[in-house]
């Protein structure tokens, strides 16, 4: 099989596997919906919903049928992106209209935070590689600070920033920023940077990524072929980067689910209108179609990113293609 053909075959297989994954995960979500005790419709609608809306919802979610049949009904609608309409949060608008722009913001925020994490991890791995006493202490301190859950870091960080800004404004008589005090809702982009910082520094993300990246760097650096390259006076750098590209990229991708979890609470603390904040607000207001739609979108994001990374990996590492092709 030619290189291009076997690559396409591999990509095709991966896409099929991802679709299967999506179907299975969405079924798990649907199963959870149906597992609600009592009348499913009542469980998923806020109090005081008029009966015709309840009926519409029941039809959309296939609640009148068995689990499998209902799943079929729901899947066929959702696969087209039709998650129904928002009940409470933004009545009249479809879920996709509400969730789409919010999701873009969340993806940007999460992607940016992840990228910063990987870059920081690489820098840390290069400088904190040796187990000297001072660096062990520094590493230990970093571990401690960054293991804080996102909302704790966010709260402490916000309080510190608020106190700092207050002093700054009082003393120097400057203007209060639009985003002060956190968590006031504003159009400013500054809270996004705060949120990104907290995302990187919380939930153990940084040190976990650092560990993985450092292990990869040490692994490749110690490989026999690197010693062979050095022994003939050639530059090790291109070999290092080529062999580290995939592992570092995998480290990036495999941590997206963690960041998506963290971003939910962080968006809430900083009042950013991303998908995480939307998820929580809709949940509070029991706007069920929005909650379900967002859950599926979050899952889809994880699957798509995983698929893209798999395919990208096959481009660089021909061994995979050879093994499966």
């Amino acid at each position, binding site marked *: 099989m030619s290189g291009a053909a076997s690559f396409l075959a591999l990509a095709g297989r991966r896409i099929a596997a991802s679709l299967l994954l999506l179907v299975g995960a969405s079924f798990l979500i649907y199963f959870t919906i149906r597992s609600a005790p009592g009348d499913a419709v009542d469980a998923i609608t806020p109090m005081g919903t008029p009966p015709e809306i309840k009926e519409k919802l029941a039809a959309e979610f296939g609640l009148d049928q068995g689990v499998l049949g209902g799943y079929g009904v729901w899947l066929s609608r959702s696969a087209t992106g039709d998650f129904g309409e928002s009940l409470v949060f933004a009545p009249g608008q479809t879920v996709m209209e509400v969730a789409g722009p919010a999701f873009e913001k969340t993806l940007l925020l999460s992607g940016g935070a992840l990228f910063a994490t990987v870059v920081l991890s690489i820098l840390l791995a290069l400088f904190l*590689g*040796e*187990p000297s006493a001072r660096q062990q202490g520094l590493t230990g301190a970093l571990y401690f600070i960054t293991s804080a859950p996102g909302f704790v870091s966010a709260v402490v960080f916000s309080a510190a920033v608020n106190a700092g800004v207050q002093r700054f404004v009082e003393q120097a008589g400057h203007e209060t920023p639009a985003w002060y005090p956190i968590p006031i809702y504003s159009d400013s982009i500054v809270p996004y940077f705060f949120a990104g910082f907290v995302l990187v520094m919380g939930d153990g993300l940084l040190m976990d990524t650092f560990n993985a990246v450092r292990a990869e760097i040490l692994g490749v650096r110690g*490989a*026999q*072929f690197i*010693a*062979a*390259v*050095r*022994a*003939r*006076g*050639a530059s090790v750098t291109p*070999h290092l980067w*080529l*062999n580290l590209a995939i592992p570092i990229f995998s480290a990036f991708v495999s941590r997206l689910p963690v960041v998506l979890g963290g971003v939910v609470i962080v968006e809430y603390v900083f009042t950013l209108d991303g998908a995480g904040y939307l998820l929580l607000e809709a949940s509070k207001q029991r706007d069920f179609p929005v909650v379900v739609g967002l859950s599926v979108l979050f899952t889809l994001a994880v699957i798509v990113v995983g698929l893209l990374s798999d395919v990208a990996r096959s481009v*660089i*590492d*021909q*061994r995979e293609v*050879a093994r499966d092709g």
Partner: protein
Amino acid sequence: MTAPLLSIEDLIIEFDTQQGRRRVVDGVSFSVGQGEVLGILGESGSGKTLSTLSILGLVPGRPGVVSGHIRAHTDAGEVDFLAELPSVVAGGTAERAYQKDDRRWQRIVQRTMKPYWGQFATAVFQNPKQSLDPLMTIGRQLDESVALANPSLDRAAVRARSVDWLRRVQLHDPERVAASYAHELSGGMCQRAMIAVALAREPRLLIADEPTTGLDTTVRAEIVGLFKALLRDRRRAMLYISHDIREVLFLADRVIVMRHGKVLEETSADDLRHGRGRRHPYTASLLEAADLPVGEAA
């Protein structure tokens, strides 16, 4: 008589283990002449690999001490590699200590040895599949060596010479090999490619550390034959390390026998082959085990 290309004097390598300081290379001395093939014969643990890898500064980074002299006759004149490295231990003795994972020390070694790597010596190791970058084509790795040895050539010329090298190491369809990756080739083909990469760098000395280990028996004989053919013009010297006495006798001009970190005997390969001269008992036992004439035992 021309100066030897490489001369190792009183090389001592000690490692700090949990049981204390262990001396792994114990006062080893030998030399290699220009264009000569020196065979280093010994079993595992004899210190043969460490002694020779230390020439390239490739001794594994474990805490310990190295002392002695590694004198090389390079393009830049006479150099003592060990003297180039900064002495870490203060005091009268010229001991140089190195630390595990000590990046600073590794960086110093690398910076010191870099001018000599490739130009003076290159190496071919065991496990050929591990010696090649798994994510680069053979051709690209060969181009690396060729370009370093011939900086004035353009890319097309470099690639032409790489393909020529692949032909010289007796690989069929060298263009296809150049476009292949290490995992697509057999062990024997990888080792041939590795030899090409090492020789394309045009070093004055080639160090081969058990290059046939891990290969099938028939392939082993082919690789040994390849070495013989490639070094026929005596432009390069070679240090051939092996535990296989037949290989060593086939390739070498002179042979040293090592055991427990010491050089037990140094003799011409010719004498060994024909059972001439007095033998050290250990060498005699090696010859006997391989069904070769022993001659007089010492």
